């Protein structure tokens, strides 16, 4: 696919993302006109101001509640989709998703432990749940990597197996805590909400920490995309075309894990985005990671922004976990694409 088409695709997806974000910011328990949303944002960002023709309460809702949440959703979707592309490409495995080597189990255990701690504890303005979820996810991958490492090499099969075993063990520990701890009892619903996934962003503080991690992560993934392409040749084949396999494997693993951990820290375990978005984009645009990474990031962001909007607005009161929405929309869309793609797409 030509360079020009790459640029067109990315621009188109960017327009779609921005449209979704504006729509999601406008929709909610209190509906606010699109153009007012745009004017409020403009007033915040530029020295020239529109006259405020809206109630000041609306401005608080938009700028302090909805906008950070929508941006949080976009970041989470972009991070999970990119991590999914990285793991599928690195492991040459279409079943891979961001959670494949234990990040989810590590994050869930971390979050569960955090809920045993006093609510007042905090780190960099974060509660302990995001901090320990992040630490649990990254820590688990490091552990899996070192467990699978033999004689200077880390075979992918060993890594998948070690990840599987670690996941089982950490999940068992989590359920042990859930079932035996009286202290956790009042917050057990929060644990389940974390497991089902939901964007939890309160204000701009968390965005300010998570956004740089995710944005830098996606840029790095795009810059290294040509190396990920070479991994399609298998490890020996990648070495033949000049890739230092073990070093790159470690870097891609670290990158995918940090992106996943950053997402999970503000969203819990949202499934399906990291699996389906990369496949959908690969069906539409082909497997070249130089286009697949930026387009998956943008499409993942748009998808999660819409899913989160539905999670907020569909029930007459309260919210449903966004993970349920992503699975309910994601699965049929994916099946449609798979059947349309036909035999050309070898899963």
């Amino acid at each position: 696919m030509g360079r020009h088409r790459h640029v067109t695709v990315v621009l188109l997806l960017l327009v779609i993302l921005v449209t979704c974000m504006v729509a999601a910011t406008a929709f909610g328990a209190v509906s606010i006109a699109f153009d007012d949303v745009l004017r409020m944002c403009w007033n915040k960002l530029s020295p020239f101001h529109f006259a405020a023709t809206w109630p000041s309460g609306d401005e608080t809702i938009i700028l302090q509640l909805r906008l950070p949440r929508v941006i949080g959703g976009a970041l989470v979707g972009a991070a999970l989709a990119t991590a999914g592309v990285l793991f599928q490409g690195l492991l040459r495995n279409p079943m891979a998703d961001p959670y494949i080597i234990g990040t989810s189990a590590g994050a869930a255990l971390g979050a569960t432990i955090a809920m045993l701690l006093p609510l007042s504890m905090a780190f960099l303005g974060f509660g302990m749940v995001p901090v320990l979820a992040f630490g649990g996810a990254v820590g688990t991958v490091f552990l899996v990597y070192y467990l699978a490492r033999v004689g200077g090499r880390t075979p992918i099969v060993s890594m998948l197996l070690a990840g599987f075993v670690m996941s089982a063990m950490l999940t068992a520990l989590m359920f042990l805590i859930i079932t035996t701890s009286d202290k956790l009892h009042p917050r057990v619903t929060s644990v389940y909400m974390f497991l089902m996934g939901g964007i939890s962003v309160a204000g701009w503080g968390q965005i300010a920490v998570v956004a740089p991690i995710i944005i830098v992560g996606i840029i790095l993934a795009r810059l290294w995309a040509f190396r990920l392409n070479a991994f399609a040749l298998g490890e020996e084949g990648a070495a033949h075309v000049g890739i230092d396999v073990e070093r790159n494997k470690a870097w891609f693993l670290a990158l995918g894990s940090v992106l996943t951990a950053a997402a999970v820290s503000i969203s819990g375990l949202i499934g399906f985005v990291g699996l389906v978005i990369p496949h959908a984009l690969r069906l539409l645009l082909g497997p070249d990671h130089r286009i697949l990474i930026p387009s998956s990031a943008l499409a993942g962001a748009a998808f999660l922004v819409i899913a989160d909007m539905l999670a907020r607005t569909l029930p007459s009161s309260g919210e449903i976990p966004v993970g349920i929405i992503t699975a309910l929309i994601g699965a049929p869309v994916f099946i449609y694409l798979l059947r349309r793609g036909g035999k050309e797409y070898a899963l």
Partner: protein
Amino acid sequence: MNMTTVNMNRVTFSYSNGAVLRDVNLCVQKGEMLGLIGPNGAGKTTLIRLISGILVAKQGEVQIDGLDTRSMKRSTIARGVAVVPQQFNMPFAYRVEEVIMLGRTPFMKPFRDSSAKDRDVIATTMDTVGIKHLKGRCFSELSGGERQKVVLAMALAQETGLLLLDEPTAHLDISHQVEILELLADMNEKGHLTIIAAMHDLNLASAYFRRLVLLKDGAIIADGSPDQVLTTGAIAMAYSVPVHIQKHPVTGTPYVVVLPSGNGHS
């Protein structure tokens, strides 16, 4: 930089379960076309993997243009040595030109991963190998012969002086076998490409390679022209099969005929 000479000096290599190559000395000059022959497990693939730097010698050293492969970066080796492996499959629906593009990886950098030069080279190699008509096709849908040509084009896109091939004609029909070998002979002659290929078929090896190296149990037991290497004694010793060596009726190169066991002609 054109790295075209290989120098293996007393190389010994073993996997964890015993010796695979023992005390191998091999010197390949620029422009040679060398066929590695020998029974399964004799060490042909291991030898190729040592030259490409995928494996590291336990004793002795492997030099490419006078440089020890152990001291070279992977990307430097990949700009001097290209490899067509024995088995090759791609996950996902990579298109032919996307596979060939992977041969340009050694020249890519994080901020320069696509250039006009890359596109030129891809077009040229597709033309050289005769697969222009496969553009846009999905690699996993191609026939075995077509795939082998695409992989060859990918290796050529690395623009190296040395090409290593591991049984490039295995599993191909006779027309594709001849087509691939003619292509290699042509590039060796006109493109001054140094070629080292492990060959299964002794008669194809005899017809297309000027120099043959016969391996048995990890050691070189014969090295020279087909006439010097393909002798009843050497083949019987390497393969433990009685053979009769004829002259090829047209080319005059040695032609190996396997004798049924029980026949006392050996």
